[in-house]
């Protein structure tokens, strides 16, 4: 089965799911960052231009900081997110899912030189398209990856009805499916709800609206409501 998730199991037996971010959102985040940095530079040039040669020196220093320090500082102190990444809900993490630290962040941002190679990020783009987790060369060397940090689209609250215990013991993923159905049934048409509920006739023994109501009652039971 195809997916973009990288699954990591901790020694405690907890599986972490890192949803790798691909070339398109990353490019958009980079464009946003570029615009932010350009804006800061242009604004700073207004006072600097009054200072003559000294102002030029300060402008050079600022340019250096924006080019090299901006990403590292943002990634380490703002939870792995530059401003562009924050806007697009992306985050840099270590390959094992831990928050990115100084060393990997510095390495991945130094290697931007290689990724930007012909001057327009051609190498980085090609690498992101080829790698299964959409890492560029800097990411591969530093052992980091960029993941989606934004919350998943969620359904609504499960409607409260009197809980009914399901007649058979359900596995964890089956329970999750029932609860998911109850949460998202508000987004589906009535016909589709009934169609889905009719699939579970062996469980509910009812059809159509009765089956939908029964499944929602089961979901209430699974959620531990009285």
């Amino acid at each position, binding site marked *: *089965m*195809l*997916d*973009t*998730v990288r699954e990591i199991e901790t020694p405690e037996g907890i599986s972490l799911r890192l*949803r*790798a*971010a*691909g*070339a*398109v*959102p990353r*490019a*958009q985040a980079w*464009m946003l960052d570029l615009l932010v940095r350009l804006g800061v530079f242009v604004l700073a040039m207004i006072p600097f231009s009054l200072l003559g040669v000294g102002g030029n020196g300060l402008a050079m220093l600022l340019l250096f900081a924006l080019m090299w320090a901006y990403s590292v500082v943002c990634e380490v102190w703002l939870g792995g997110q530059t401003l562009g990444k924050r806007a*697009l*809900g992306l985050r840099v993490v270590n390959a094992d899912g831990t928050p990115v630290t100084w060393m990997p962040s510095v390495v991945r941002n130094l290697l931007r030189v290689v990724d930007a*190679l*012909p*001057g*327009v*990020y*051609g*190498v980085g*783009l*090609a690498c992101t*398209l*080829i790698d*299964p987790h*959409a890492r560029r060369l800097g990411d591969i060397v530093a052992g980091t990856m960029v993941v*989606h940090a*934004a919350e*998943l*689209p*969620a359904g609504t609250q499960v409607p409260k009805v009197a809980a009914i215990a399901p*007649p*058979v013991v*359900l596995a964890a993923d*089956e329970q*999750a*499916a029932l609860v*998911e*159905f109850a949460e*998202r049934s508000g*987004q*589906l*048409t009535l*016909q*589709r709800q009934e169609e*889905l509920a009719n*699939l*579970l*006739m*062996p*469980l*509910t*023994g*009812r*059809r159509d609206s*009765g089956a939908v109501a029964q499944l929602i009652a089961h979901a209430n039971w699974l959620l531990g409501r009285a």
Partner: protein
Amino acid sequence: MELERISVVLRPRAPREALDLGAAMLRANARAVWSAWFAFTLPAFVLCNTLGVVVGLPWLGLLLMWWLKPLFDRLPLYVLARAVFDRAPGWRATLRGQRQWPWGSTWAALSWLRIDSNRSLRLPLELLEGLPRRQRSARWSVLRRRIVTDASLLTYACLQFELVLFLSVWLLTWMLVPHEWLPDSLRDFFRVDVHAASTAWMLLSSLVAYLAMSVIEPLYVACGFALYLNRRTQLEAWDIDLAFRRLRQRLLANGKALAVLLVCAGCWSLPVHAAISPQALQAASPTSLEQVFRQPVGAADRRFADAAAEAYRDPRFGGERKTREWVFKYTPAPQAAATPMQPLFPGFAGGVAMILKLALWLLLAVAVAALLRFVWRWRGTRAGVDAAAVSRLRGLRTQVVADAPLPADLAAAVRVMWHAHQQREALALLYRGCVEQATRLLQLPSSLDMTEADWLRQAAAMADRARAQRVVTIVRTWQFAAYAGRYPDDAAVESLLAGWPAQAGAPA
């Protein structure tokens, strides 16, 4: 719909994440996609450029190849759609399969919809669902609702990617030319080559652009297809459908199903036995994409068409809906543009205007003065209050020493302090003395953590009512002084100092 055959993980994703799924699908089916792509587009590339050279317009090849993109888009989509629901077809099958797909939408995309930023999303809708025109537009409005921004952004991103790859090739070549040759070759290039061999350069550009397009265009189609899949998963809960099917199969296979059914039928007395039979499960499993997407729709299947029409009547799928908004009950009459009127007596009007202006300035001055005066007064009061509060607090923080030994003659000591205007300290001393006497009287263990309330309670337990009354009076007096700042007059203090606790040996 034969969802069980799907080969991607269905789960609710944000649209941006769905784009990445598209890239993953493309990576998994790279060979099938690009073999079909080059099998069709390479001849097209040669043809277009030959045409350009023959006509004498070398740039025509570049333009034509760009213009024909919507035509080429059909190939990756064909491969990916089949790869997701079945398995990837070879390039021959892909080319042959193009005949089954409708052409109308492609003509539209090649003509008036050529500059449409939602092409990637339109493609699967038009080619895979193959609905009649009216239903298609209703369906389009549902499908695009939450993701039209992402589709447009995808188009611009892919445009940028193509540009990046195109420029990368040129810049890389330029970087590989040795530096000492660079001035000469550049001079030659601009002086001779651009004019002499412009056709060759144009063809070379066309080739590079074609290569960049070959990399990015399948990605564009795949990302659009993934967006489409994700939106349908969201609209129709495909992931739940799959999970329910698996659960249903487990229940039926367990054989417990029959028992459960019997129980359920007993409980709700519903005739459900007949509905589920093993035969029903083993209906012929559709294998072709036509069966998966039910194509063509509605021609023979009357019942399905009715059901579809019913579904479209749902407000979430377009149709009529009621909205509420506030509007003016009385529409204001359009005002004629006010033409400046000529004053009758210009001098008089000017004078009035001057007077009013002066009055306004005066008003402003008064307002400012009032404000300043208010600020001044406010500052003064605030400072005064603060100073008073601080001095009062300082007064409160006098040393009420709790652990110094009590004087031998308590009454005299208290009286001296009282007359020296150390009223609080005097009463504190009296309270301490009273507490000590009471402790001795009741033969309690000396304890530091007894509060005034505790002493009031202890007083109630005293056998001698007169002494108990005196303890209560002293504690109360101290409480009023300590917590409310209310001090007794001299006579009341004198009465407190006479007799038992202050004069240890005295009777009550």
